[in-house]
C-alpha cells in the first residue's frame, strides 16, 4: 500500500533521512521504533507533505501513486492521515467547525454532498463516546487549552471520522497516562481493517503492547537498520537502541 523507496531528505541543508526504504501492506500495522533524532518525525512529515523538507532522492508511493508530487491537501484526500505528535492549536476555530470542514472536504473530493448537521452530529457523538471525549470540549477552539491526552484523543477522533486508507501515528503515546493510552489504542484497534495500513511511530515498546504490530522496523540515523516481527520490539526494550545506532554508523 505504502512504498517508500530510497528516500533521502534534508532540512535546512542537513540530511535527516538517508536512503530509507520501507513498505506497509494493506491491513498491516507496521511499527517504527527508534531513538530521538533518528528521523522518525521527519519521515511522518515527509509522507504528509509538510513544507521545507527537501527530498533529494527516492519516491513515496501510495498504491502506486507518487505522493511527493501532491500538496498536503491532495495527499490527505488520497487517504493519508497523520496523527500529529504535537497537534497544533488554532485559536478562533471551533473544534466542531474544523471537524465538519475536514469531513466535508473529503466528501466533496469524492463527489459526495456535505453531511447534514444531524448526521454529522450523530457521527461525532458516536465516535466521541468511544474515545471518552466530552462534546463540550469540541465546542472550544481547536486544541487550545487541551491537555496532552485530550489533544491525542482528538487526533484519533479525527482519524475515526475521516477513515483514512493509510494512517501514520507519530508518537501518539507520548504524554499519555495508562488510561488514556488504552483508550487511544482501542481507538486505533477499532479502525484496523484489511484495506487500511498503519505506520505507528514510537520511542517505547509500551504502545505496542496495546496496538499489536505485524512488523517492527528499527530506525537509526535516518534509515531502517532492522526489521522483524513483534519480538523485535521486546528485544529493543531489553537491549536499548545503542547496538542499532552503532550498526547504522
Amino acid at each position, binding site marked *: 500500500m505504502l512504498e517508500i523507496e530510497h528516500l533521502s531528505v534534508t532540512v535546512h541543508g542537513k540530511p535527516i533521512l538517508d536512503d530509507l526504504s520501507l513498505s506497509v501492506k494493506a491491513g498491516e500495522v507496521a511499527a517504527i521504533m527508534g531513538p530521538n533524532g533518528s528521523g522518525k518525525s521527519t519521515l511522518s512529515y515527509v509522507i504528509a507533505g509538510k513544507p521545507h523538507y527537501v527530498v533529494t532522492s527516492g519516491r513515496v508511493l501510495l498504491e502506486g501513486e507518487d505522493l511527493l508530487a501532491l*500538496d498536503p*491537501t491532495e495527499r490527505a484526500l488520497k487517504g493519508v492521515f*497523520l496523527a500529529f505528535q504535537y497537534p*497544533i492549536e*488554532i*485559536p478562533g*476555530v471551533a473544534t466542531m467547525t474544523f471537524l465538519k470542514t*475536514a469531513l466535508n472536504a473529503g466528501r466533496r473530493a469524492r463527489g459526495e454532498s456535505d453531511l447534514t448537521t444531524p448526521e454529522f452530529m450523530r457521527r461525532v457523538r458516536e465516535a466521541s463516546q468511544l474515545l471518552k471525549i466530552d462534546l463540550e470540549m469540541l465546542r472550544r*477552539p481547536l486544541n487550545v487549552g487541551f491537555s496532552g491526552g485530550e489533544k491525542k484523543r482528538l487526533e484519533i477522533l479525527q482519524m475515526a471520522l475521516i477513515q483514512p486508507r493509510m494512517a501514520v501515528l507519530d508518537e501518539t503515546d507520548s504524554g499519555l497516562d495508562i488510561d488514556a493510552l488504552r483508550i487511544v489504542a482501542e481507538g486505533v484497534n477499532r479502525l484496523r481493517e484489511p484495506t487500511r495500513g498503519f505506520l505507528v511511530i514510537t520511542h517505547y515498546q509500551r504502545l505496542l503492547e496495546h496496538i499489536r504490530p505485524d512488523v517492527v522496523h528499527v530506525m537509526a540515523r535516518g534509515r531502517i537498520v532492522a526489521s522483524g516481527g513483534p519480538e523485535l520490539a521486546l528485544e529493543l526494550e531489553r537491549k536499548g537502541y545503542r547496538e542499532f545506532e552503532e550498526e547504522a554508523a
Partner: protein
Amino acid sequence: MTAHFAERSIAESALARDFEATHALSRSPRRAAAFSRFQVQGLPTRRNESWHYTDLRAAMREAAPLAPPPDKQTIEAARRMLQARKPIGVGRVVLVNGAVATELSEGLPASVVFEREELPSADVDDAMVALNEAMSLDAGELKVLGGAAFTDPVEIIHLTVGEHAQATYSRLAITVAAGAKAEFVEDFIGATPGVQRNASTLMALAENAKVKHVVMLNDQAGLHIESQIAELAPRAELNAFALVAGGALTRRQLFVRLAGEEAKVALGGLALVDGSRRADTTLQVNHKATGGTSREFYRAIVDDDGVGVFQGKIIVEKAAQKTDGAMKSQAILLSPQAQMNAKPELEIFADDVACGHGATIGSLDPEQLFYLQARGIPRAEAESMLLEAFGREAIDRIEDQRLIEPLREALGAWLAAGRGKATSMRTLK
C-alpha cells in the same frame, strides 16, 4: 502649531472657496472660528506626528464640492437604500450626505431622544476635527435618558446618495445619562469613489453609564475621515469597535478621555485592507483620574498593495494612579507588497500604574495551515478559516451576539469575495 506651507494646496483653496461661498457656514461665527483653526494648520502632512503615516495633503489632490442639503429625490433614493438593507437594531437615526434626515429616522426607544442641534467645539487639536466643525451644515444629538437600559442597539446610518464627487460632513453627539446603558451601531454605506467623507461623533458618558458602540465601514468612499471623541465620567464604561472593510483612504481617529475615576474603556478594531487601499487608525487615550482601565486591541489583514496603519498613544497623567492599560496591535500580511505600520506608545507621568503594549506583524502560521491541509482542507479554504478566526477574535471582544453577528457576516463576505485570498495564487508552487 504653525502653518508649514506658505501656499495653499489646490484642495485647501477649494475648501476655502466652498466655505466662503456657503453663507450658512461662513456667516456662523463658531464655524468661521473653526475654519480659521483649520486654515492655520492646513491639511495634515507627515510633519504632523499624529498623521505621520498618512500624508493627507499629498493624498487629497482635490477637494470634492460640498454636498448640498438633500432634496426630496435624494431622500427618496435614501429610503430605497434603507429598504434594501438588513436592519441590525431596533430604532435608527439616518443621516443623508451628512445631513440629519428626520423623515427617515424612526423607532427609537422611549428613553432615547434625538434632537437636531448645534454642538459645541470638541476640545481636540486636529485640523480635520476643526474642518468637520466648520463645514457641517447640520448636527444632531442622541440623548440617552437616565434609567435607560435598552439592550437592542440603536443604529446611526450614514447614507451617501449620488455617484458624483461630493464632500459630506456629519456631526453627531451621543450623551448618556448617569447609570444608563445603551448600544449603538454606526453604519457608513452608499459612498462611491468620488465621495470625501468627514464624520465626527462626540460621546459623553456620565457616571456609571455603560455604552457599546460599533462602527461598520463597508462602502467605496474615496476618502473616509472619522473622528470619535469620547469623555468618560467616573465608573463609566465604553466598549467601542470598528470594522473597516471599505474605503480607498480611511482614517479613523479616536480621542478618549477617562476623566472620572475608575472609568473603563475597551477599544477594538479590525481592518481588512486589499487592493491599493489604505486604512489608518490613530488613537489617543488620556487617563486623567485614578483607577482607570483601558484596553486597545486592533487587528488588520492586509493584502495586495494595501497599507495598514495603527498608531496608539496612552497617556497616563500624574493624577491617574492605579491606571491599568494594555494596548495590542496585530497584523497579518498576505502579500509581499502589503504594508503595516504600527506605532504603540505610552506616556506615563504617574508612578503607580500597570501599562503595556505590543505589536506583531506576520503572515499566516505555516504550521496551522499544514495542520488544516493535512486533514484534507484545501489551501485557500484553510487560509480563509485562519483569517476568519483571526478577525473573529477581534470582533468577539464586543461581547454581544447581536453586534457580533453582522460584523462576522461582513468579515465572511470580505473573505468570500476573494479578497484576502489572492495570496494562495502566489504562494502555491
